[in-house]
């Protein structure tokens, strides 16, 4: 029987001819990623499956904002040293785990990647069966090298047309979330002739956000754009075996997204499912905080477009614009390219790379009654601080333009200046 993309990867990793929706399989994990939070209640294993298939990334709370977090650092360092884990991204080489996974080609086509964090589906952009499994299960994979999955039915998104200027992966995702609602206990598969116009950073934004509609895995094909990206980051074509869906595979639904017809979108506070609309339909709100960052939208291209929009402009009075690069690598690149200077000149606060404001932990926590427009991953009540704050969500371009206006605005009104100049 023909298989979907994810069924194929899971069949291969489970050593089976075929797997289909409803099957429970035990899969070999090719890469298992531990994060800093893991080391708060850490018990060192007696033996582990394979240091080569293990990575450790310090990301959520670095440099440590609490003693509790600080105490995890030495445990992580000792563990990496004692067990010979070379892929250890300590403070200084750190970044948000999903960004570090991408930069170091830890996620490869046709392979299985697990990580503590819920947005691990991000690596589906590289044709990887990747998902978050939680802190206990990550220890399980660390020890045994494998875990189980119950295969969910797959929803396929056929992308057609071309992504217009000023419209990004976040908008594609918000359109999907707003139109079809959540996809709980389903896998997402992306493809279609429109995909070629979607760059890797935007694909990763889409794949990352799949967690917000409660999907399991979200995978893209390893097309030329993807292969080029991987080659640039250290994984040549001989180092992986991509998985394409079989013709005639069974899908729970096939949905078409016309990229050329999309406009920038905004999600209203609380959730994204059934709660995101084109920006022309969203109410005007006075903004207190604007945030560009996170695993979804703290990439170099996010900082680039924010710098383009903010060049020669200023953040509106009464608005805090916080920009958090997704990794030290992004930080250093953005510094060299001059983006950070442009952003700071406009009045933005550029922070160290970490999860920070995204999960309301440090560096940009919201107070009661405040309104935030964020390019990060989640708009749950209380996510970024007070449960009495409201969190709207949009692309980095929309957040940058809105920081200038002091209210949510269509970024194309400001980008036009660049393109007509």
């Amino acid at each position, binding site marked *: 029987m023909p298989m979907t993309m994810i069924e194929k990867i899971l069949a291969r990793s489970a050593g089976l001819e075929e797997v289909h929706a409803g099957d*429970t399989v035990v899969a070999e994990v090719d890469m298992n990623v531990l994060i800093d*939070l893991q080391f708060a*209640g850490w*018990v*060192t*294993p*007696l*033996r582990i499956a394979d240091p080569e298939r293990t990575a450790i990334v310090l990301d959520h709370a670095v440099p440590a904002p*609490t003693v*509790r*977090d600080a105490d995890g650092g030495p445990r992580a360092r000792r563990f990496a040293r004692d067990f010979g884990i070379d892929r250890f991204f300590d403070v200084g080489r750190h970044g948000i785990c999903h960004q570090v996974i991408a930069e170091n080609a830890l996620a490869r086509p046709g392979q299985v990647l697990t990580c*503590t*964090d*819920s947005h691990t589906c991000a690596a589906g952009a590289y044709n990887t069966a990747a*998902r*978050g*499994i*939680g*802190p*206990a*299960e990550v*220890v*399980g994979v660390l*020890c*045994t090298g494998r875990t*189980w999955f*119950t295969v*969910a039915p797959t929803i396929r998104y056929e992308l057609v047309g071309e992504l217009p200027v000023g419209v990004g992966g976040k908008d594609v995702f918000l359109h999907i979330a707003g139109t079809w609602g*959540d996809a*709980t*206990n389903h896998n997402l598969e992306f493809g279609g002739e429109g995909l070629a116009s979607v760059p890797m950073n935007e694909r990763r934004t889409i794949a990352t956000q799949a*967690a*917000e509609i*409660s999907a*399991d895995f979200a995978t893209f094909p390893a097309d030329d754009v993807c292969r080029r990206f991987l080659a640039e980051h250290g994984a040549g074509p001989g180092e992986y075996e991509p998985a394409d869906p079989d013709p005639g595979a069974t899908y729970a639904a096939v949905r078409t997204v016309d990229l050329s017809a999309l406009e920038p979108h905004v999600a209203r506070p609380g*959730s994204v*499912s059934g709660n995101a609309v084109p920006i022309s339909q969203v109410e005007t709100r006075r903004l207190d905080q604007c945030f560009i960052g996170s695993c979804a939208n703290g990439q170099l291209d996010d900082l680039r477009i924010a710098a383009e929009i903010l060049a020669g402009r200023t953040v509106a009075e009464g608005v805090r614009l916080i920009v958090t690069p997704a990794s030290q690598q992004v930080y250093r690149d953005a510094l060299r390219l001059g983006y950070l200077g442009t952003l700071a000149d406009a009045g933005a606060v550029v922070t160290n790379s970490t999860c920070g404001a995204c*999960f*309301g*932990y440090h560096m940009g926590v919201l107070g009661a009654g405040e309104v935030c427009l964020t390019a990060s991953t*989640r708009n*749950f*009540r*209380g*996510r*970024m*601080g007070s*449960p009495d704050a409201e969190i709207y969500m949009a692309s980095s371009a929309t957040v940058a333009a809105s920081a200038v206006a002091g209210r949510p605005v269509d970024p194309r009104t400001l980008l036009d200046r660049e393109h007509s100049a």
Partner: protein
Amino acid sequence: MTDRWTITGRTWVVGDSVDTDAMYPGYAMKLDVPEAARHVFYALRPRWVDEVAPGDIVVAGRNFGIGSSRPVAALMRHLGVAALVAEEFNSLFLRNAINNGLPALTVPGVRDLVSEGEELTVDLEHGWARAGDRRVDVAPQPPMVLDILAAGGLLPRLVADGYLPAEGAAS
């Protein structure tokens, strides 16, 4: 006759898409489990942590536990919650429950079966839920999952299998 996978308890009923941040807010991640557990449902149902009693069952609607990988189940267990029952679970949240040794069962239509405060019985192994004289049959948990739950969660299981030292069972 009691079966180890048959669990009966008084119910607390919450709605659809209750997310992890509503159960384990970011700031509570700076606290140890007993302290953090004081904040479960902090905005949704303030003071619930004072009312819930050991042996109670939390009943939820669709898409229960959407969100983060933070181990809410550890907090629920600390509060003495005996089981989670939902119309539908977010798959990561369900994994976290099982891996932390907290029994969980998907029961479509469970909110038509019980109202808050009523008693509910679920059987994970045979797959059914009963309230009063009404009973529905559902998919049971696979043996692999019951195995992890029987050990008290994945970490105790890893201790038993010789991967973790004995003190690993506590977390």
